[in-house]
């Protein structure tokens, strides 16, 4: 049914891609490129309700539940955050709620982006991950209640 790779497999792919870069500039150039290529979120979704709290940069995130899988769309006014979002979407979008909830997302650390997970007010990635997981949890609970 689901032809999508597992979260762990996609994480592995990303780590392998990043292992090719030997400087921080190269890594960030790649992330910026990903950010630029992430399709912008439709204007009607860029509302306060969809804002991820705790980001210095504005981040909007929407989720959709289709055939047992969750699909994410997101945007940011920071192109680097957009690049990071793009990777999170690549890993998590289209996966099942259970897999998303359990995902460790170690790739973020492995590619050296730990700065973006620090508990500072300026870093939004952690808030993003939490929000993506809480969507998954919400869908799971909703599903359990209706079946």
């Amino acid at each position, binding site marked *: 049914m689901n032809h999508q790779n597992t979260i762990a497999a996609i994480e592995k792919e990303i780590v392998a891609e990043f292992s090719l870069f030997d400087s*921080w*500039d190269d890594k*960030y*150039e790649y992330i*910026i490129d990903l950010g630029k290529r992430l399709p912008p979120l439709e204007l009607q979704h860029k509302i306060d309700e969809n804002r991820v709290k705790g980001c*210095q*940069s*504005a981040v909007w995130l929407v989720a959709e539940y289709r055939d047992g899988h969750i699909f994410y769309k997101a945007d940011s*006014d*920071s*192109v*680097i*955050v957009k690049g990071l979002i793009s990777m999170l979407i690549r890993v998590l979008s289209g996966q099942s709620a259970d897999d998303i909830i359990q995902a460790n997302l170690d790739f973020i650390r492995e590619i050296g982006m730990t*700065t973006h997970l620090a508990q500072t*007010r*300026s870093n939004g990635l952690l808030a993003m991950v939490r929000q993506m997981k809480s969507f998954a949890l919400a869908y799971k609970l909703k599903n359990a209640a209706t079946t």
Partner: protein
Amino acid sequence: MITAKASLQKGLDVYSIRQQFPILNRKVKGKPLVYLDNAATTQKPQVVIDALVNYYGNYNANVHRGIHTLAEEATQAFEATRDAVQQFIHAASREEIIFTRGSTESINLVAYTWGRKNIQAGDEIIISHMEHHSNIVPWQILCEEKSATLKVIPVNDAGEMIFEDYLKLLSPKTKLVAVMHASNALGTINPVKQIIDAAHKSGAMVLIDGAQSAAHLYIDVRQMDVDFFVFSSHKVYGPTGVGILYGKKNILEAMPVFHGGGEMIKEVTFEKTTYNDLPYKFEAGTPNIADTIAFKAALDFINETGKDNIRRHEEELLHYATNQLQQVPGLKIIGTAKDKVSVVSFVISKMHPQDIGILLDNSGIAVRTGHHCAQPLMYRFGIPGTVRASFAVYNTIEEIDGLIAGLHKTIKMLS
């Protein structure tokens, strides 16, 4: 020593100063650290680090209580910092120097004690549009509790307080004017003497937030005739966790106590407690002994370097940085006041401050990005935040060249 003194007469030998700050030798992302986030906190000279280690290694003891040798030595060193602070800000007496955790706690202390006693329904407190949240929120809380009103002095497009509007806000209802000496977000130096004189003429008291001025400007609380002056050690080359509240003696004496506990008492029975004299009345519990002691080493460092030398050097850096930044395409400096401390805030069109900050960090350059705890000011300029470079005594022209090169590279990557 002779060469150091000789060079000081000509100005300031920034390279020998840099040698006193061990952290400046470190690398970030493989590049030499360029630390331009001094308005957030300054780095510490070796003498400050040594003072901390020496206290814990040789005479760690609680202050003011013990009769043993260590307690005596710790108390002497602790109280020596109070004397050094008194001299640093030219206070009339050492009793006027209260140790707190930082500027924020100092402001809260005044709001909770003086404020609760003296602010009534219908009274007014004046702040400015450029204040740090620390000098907004405590007054908001107080005004809400007392049904008093918070009035805000507007700021012009250059980031300067509009003085005529301030004069218009002053009235017999005004009980307190609380404004910053220098802006952390824009660098603006406010005309505190005129602000204080006008407030006093109108019968209001004045609190000056010196968090961003104490390291840069000559501070004379008596000449200012200020009622309260607050600042933090960690922005003045000292350790974190130590703040200063200066208050005029008669005002502090009339103020109710803040925290209850040890040290601040004279005698305790279950029926009644009598309070200690100044300054101990406001220093409940075991204070931050090590950091307070080490703060004196920071003040000694400033005195030896010379505040005039520091100011001249930082003005040169500010002037150079401003000129260089203005030539970066798409860059706009936010805050162009005539009088500034060594802070430059800027935005670059179509680029997010956070992205610029991340990419500068990649080049080993530490700047601050965001709203700088001054959200109302950012709204005033219609921006979510800025990139801020702030300079200290150890920064160099070469580092500013590094910032400019880093910005060119950043712009190339982001566009």
